[in-house]
């Protein structure tokens, strides 16, 4: 009896220091399944074609609706979210790999800490209180709100960094997502009060000048964030700051 199946080829790694290896899985076809549901099916009875009882495949996920970014992995050679990768729409066998720009924790699960450290470095927040009450913030124009809304959709998934030729495991490049967040918070009327501090953080090693304008980031972003506009905008802000610092300070 021939039953329709889904074939998966998964790059596995047992711990952060061990060597990766490939395993192939085959599970019964179910309509409307996505890559996460396939991984769940494998987990029920993890077995490859010639080996029963292998370790279950580990992955990361949370929202299942492409807003948290935690299920990001390389699917058929391209980085994207596993929860919105529908089996009926992608090529088979489905090849799954962990992202290559972040340390692997286990199998498909990676440690995206470097992204969060970058957000801290560029102060990706609005300071709302200090030693005294700052009062009500200024009003924001609706056009600014609209631009900021788009930028605020970033889910720190890492697609832009995985696709970026300038972002490597052994350098300190901050990457497109962080630059875009600098723009987001410098656009905020209250956030703008700390604009210079944010710019200073991207005017060093690994900063905005290291971007090679390959623009792979914007192609890879699942949220269609205009990353290259953000990069050029932050380039302008930092260039002006450089001239100001050199000539007027």
């Amino acid at each position, binding site marked *: 009896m021939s039953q329709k199946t889904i074939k998966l080829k998964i790059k596995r790694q047992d711990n952060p220091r061990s060597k990766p290896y490939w395993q192939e899985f085959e599970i019964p076809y179910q309509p409307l399944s996505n890559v996460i549901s396939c991984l769940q099916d494998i987990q029920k009875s993890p077995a490859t074609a010639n080996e029963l009882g292998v370790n279950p495949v580990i992955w990361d996920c949370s929202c299942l609706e492409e807003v948290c970014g935690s299920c990001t992995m390389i699917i058929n*050679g*391209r980085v994207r979210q596993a929860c919105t990768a529908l089996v009926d729409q992608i090529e088979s066998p489905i090849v799954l790999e962990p992202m290559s720009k972040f340390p692997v924790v286990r199998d498909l699960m990676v440690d995206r800490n470097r992204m969060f450290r970058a957000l801290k470095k560029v102060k990706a927040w609005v300071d709302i209180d200090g030693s005294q009450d700052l009062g009500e913030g200024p009003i924001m124009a609706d056009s600014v709100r609209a631009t900021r809304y788009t930028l605020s959709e970033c889910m720190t998934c890492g697609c832009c960094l995985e*696709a970026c*030729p*300038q972002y*490597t495991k052994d*350098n300190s490049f901050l990457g497109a997502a962080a630059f875009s967040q600098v723009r987001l918070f410098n656009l905020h009327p209250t956030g703008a009060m700390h604009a210079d501090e944010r710019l200073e953080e991207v*005017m*060093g*090693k690994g*900063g*905005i*000048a*290291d*971007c*090679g*304008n*390959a*623009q*792979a980031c914007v*192609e*890879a972003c699942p949220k269609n964030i*205009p990353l*290259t*506009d953000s*990069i*050029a*905008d*932050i*380039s*302008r*802000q*930092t*260039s*002006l700051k*450089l001239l100001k610092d050199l000539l007027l300070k």
Partner: protein
Amino acid sequence: MAKITQDQAHFLLLKINSLMGLIPIGVFLAFHLGINALRTVGPLQYQLSIDLINNLPFLFGIEIAFIYAPLLFHSMMGFYIYFSGKRNVGHYGYPRNWRYTLQRITGLIVFAFLIYHLGTTVAPKIFYGKHQFLAAPFLMDIMNAEFQTWSGRIIYLIGISSATFHFANGLWGFCVSWGIIIGQNAQRNASIVFAMVGLVLTFLGFATVLEFSLNPIPVTPTVGE
């Protein structure tokens, strides 16, 4: 003056490097290809232009300050930038990612070409002491001979097109990384304009190669024995 931190130096060096690609190196390239194209008007016109250059006051200083020092700086930074990234057009073959990769590869090609080019022009000129009005006939003899072989022609065609691509795409990168063009439309329009600049410069260079290849005419010094 406040002490400059390592981070500030890094940023400043990359900014200066980006500026240098345009001024003076890019400006030099445009002038160089434009002036060489005088050869298509006639050998005398070309000779007079080389005469003018080789009779400039403080020529040595000008060449060092505006050509060799910036070129050396730009290429050393270029190697640094080349090795700071890891090209990935295999997986992400978007047109702009290709241009990022080509910008780096053409940089390497131009560097190799310039070693060859200076080795066959400026080096022998200095070695044999062919200054002022003696430079033009000497250099034009060399060029005439170089363009009689296919290997010579091909080296120049590759060198010229690599340089013009590198310059035109570099202009675009300069405008983005100084924040002169920001929006997607502006970026696309600018790339069309700069592509045309690149094509015009390529045309000038190729026309010169063609002229040298078809009409290798020797000349005698304009002034002197």
